[in-house]
């Protein structure tokens, strides 16, 4: 079959060396994963930098890289909101407001925090939904990655799936979370060094950012692709079909805060920090780098609009016409500028992105399964060694289930259409439950559980309603012109509101926990060590303000 890129022996050597390194790190660390704290929480000894870079890297999957480059080609600079307002405020909020409660409570997971705050039913509900969502997402990512490798490199799908997943299974099963985190830091560097050349050379070719904008306007006849905010006054004024309220309230508030503050995949990295200050600084360091990610993701998509001599289309049209789809924009730009060696580095960056995302999924799944499902519901009194062994087996099992999911998706590709919806079913209401649990003493165990359940069911019901009657989108998203992405944003917002309303109502009808039982879990009942004695540059709040200022300036520049 034809494919975009032909790899030279030098490129293959670069990829092979990468695999050898990640496996060696797992092997080297295997002796440091003998206790539960070692295996599941990396001994709680990570510095702020290690935890922060790993926190970001676990989110930087290859699909994230290629998917958002594709979105930038399709929707223009609006895609940058998923990196800025859709991430930065939430990451700073996690560091400054929520991390003290996660860290001081000494929980090993987000469902574990819910158990401490609201009891077993809330933990069971969130643990089961998280485990289900994690292996499903992992399998879908695996399939999508293998598909890209087939289209771009001509690699067999089975080869890509098995080689990359077995490698992840080996290094995580050997070294636990410590191995996953160390490899994620390594992968973070590879992603940046592998991907940075594309925008750098692209800007040279386009004549700088001014030249890039001029070319896009000339090619598309509109400047709506190069403004982040000024086109959001109406649903029809921008390529994404979304209103600024959807971006600010749906994405910037509910979806973003839900993902960055309650998705255990990312929170687990910060829980491994060596002390509270490191745990608070880690998401702030992550936020500083997250703001820069559009340079290697969004900019290549925009450069594709400016310099590629042909037009990219949707997947179906690309298959029908033999052309290229939006999803191929990043590999196309890589092939445009990179010769042997640099090409291998770029492909290694994509593989590293995939593996860091998968390792994040697998290590989080192993922890939630072992502590929040197996120990909580099946075997409460086993030894620490037994749970570590379960964690290792679970890592392998999680990878195998993900592989099974990947093959399932291969047979029933419509599953892909439901992924974003699935994500919004669970994440948005979970944020409502956790934030009320942390900040409101009066929230009761019954309120927490029923709020979480009704928010989740409400979200599923809204999704089913629009599926059955597409015109219902005018009630969910306030406009019949709203598109899928806008629907997800507004559905997330509604499900969060339902969760909060039910939690408040049920809490006022039921008996709250006595305050001594809330120590270390809730604002007002927890002693949080002050930072008054620390020099200004050691204080998380100082760096949060600095990152906030850069965030504001960037939004104004690209308004």
């Amino acid at each position, binding site marked *: 079959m034809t494919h975009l890129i032909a790899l030279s022996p030098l490129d293959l050597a670069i990829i092979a060396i990468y695999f050898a390194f990640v496996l060696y*790190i797992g092997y080297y660390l295997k002796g440091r994963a003998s206790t539960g704290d070692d295996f599941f929480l990396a001994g709680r000894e990570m510095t702020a930098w290690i935890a922060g870079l790993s926190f970001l890297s676990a989110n930087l999957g290859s699909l994230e890289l290629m998917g958002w480059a594709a979105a930038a080609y399709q929707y223009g600079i609006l895609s940058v909101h998923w990196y800025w307002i859709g991430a930065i405020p939430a990451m700073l909020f996690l560091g400054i407001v929520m991390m003290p409660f996660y860290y001081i409570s000494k929980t090993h997971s987000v469902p574990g925090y819910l158990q401490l705050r609201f009891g077993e039913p809330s933990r069971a509900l969130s643990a089961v939904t998280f485990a289900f969502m994690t292996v499903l997402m992992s399998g879908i990512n695996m399939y999508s990655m293998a598909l890209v490798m087939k289209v771009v490199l001509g690699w067999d799908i089975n080869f890509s799936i098995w080689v990359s997943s077995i490698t992840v299974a080996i290094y995580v099963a050997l070294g636990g979370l410590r191995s996953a985190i160390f490899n994620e830091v390594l992968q973070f560097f590879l992603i940046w060094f592998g991907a940075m050349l594309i925008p750098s050379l692209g800007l040279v070719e386009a004549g700088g950012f001014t030249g890039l904008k001029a070319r896009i306007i000339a090619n598309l006849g509109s400047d709506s692709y190069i403004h982040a905010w000024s086109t959001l006054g109406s649903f029809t004024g921008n390529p994404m079909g979304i209103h600024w309220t959807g971006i600010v309230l749906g994405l910037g508030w509910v979806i973003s805060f839900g993902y960055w503050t309650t998705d255990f995949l990312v929170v687990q990295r910060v829980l491994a920090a060596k002390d509270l200050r490191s745990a608070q600084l880690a998401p702030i360091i992550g936020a500083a780098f997250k703001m820069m990610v559009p340079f290697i993701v969004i900019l290549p998509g925009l450069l594709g609009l400016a310099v590629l001599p042909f037009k990219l289309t949707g997947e179906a049209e690309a298959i029908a016409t033999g052309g290229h789809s939006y999803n191929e924009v990043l590999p196309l730009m890589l092939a445009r500028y990179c010769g042997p060696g640099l090409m291998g580095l770029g492909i290694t960056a994509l593989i590293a992105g995939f593996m860091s995302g998968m390792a994040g999924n697998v290590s989080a799944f192993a922890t939630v399964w072992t502590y929040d499902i197996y120990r909580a519901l099946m075997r409460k009194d086993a030894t620490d060694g037994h749970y570590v062994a379960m964690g290792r087996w679970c890592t392998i099992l999680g990878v195998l289930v993900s592989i099974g999911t990947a093959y399932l998706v291969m047979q029933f590709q419509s599953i892909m259409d439901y992924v974003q919806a699935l994500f919004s079913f669970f994440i948005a209401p979970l944020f409502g439950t956790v934030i009320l649990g942390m900040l409101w003493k009066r929230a009761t165990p019954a309120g927490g559980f029923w709020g979480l359940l009704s928010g989740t069911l409400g979200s599923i019901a809204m999704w089913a309603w629009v599926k059955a009657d597409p015109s219902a989108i005018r009630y969910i998203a306030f406009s019949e012109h709203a598109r899928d992405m806008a629907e997800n944003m507004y559905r997330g917002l509604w499900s969060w509101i339902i969760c909060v309303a039910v939690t408040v109502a049920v809490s006022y009808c039921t008996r709250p926990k006595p305050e001594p039982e809330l120590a270390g879990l809730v604002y007002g009942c927890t002693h949080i060590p002050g930072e008054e004695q620390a020099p200004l540059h050691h204080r998380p709040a100082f760096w949060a303000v600095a990152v906030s200022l850069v965030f504001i300036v960037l939004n104004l520049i690209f308004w």
Partner: protein
Amino acid sequence: MHTGSGISIWFFIGALLTIYGALILGYGLYSLAVPPAQPPVLHELHAGIWWGAVLLAVGLGYSYAHLPRKRS
């Protein structure tokens, strides 16, 4: 951050970047002498040479700063 018996994760990163830098710089210099049949866009900028040099410099810097023997 150590990996248990003295080797820092930063050393691993430095070592990998050093190897990559040497390979990419080496090929970049080779392609000066033997230009590729189908050069990429902006080949005249010789990205392989300067990017390989950057990787090599960063890699050597990290490796030296975090040599295992220095962190006993």
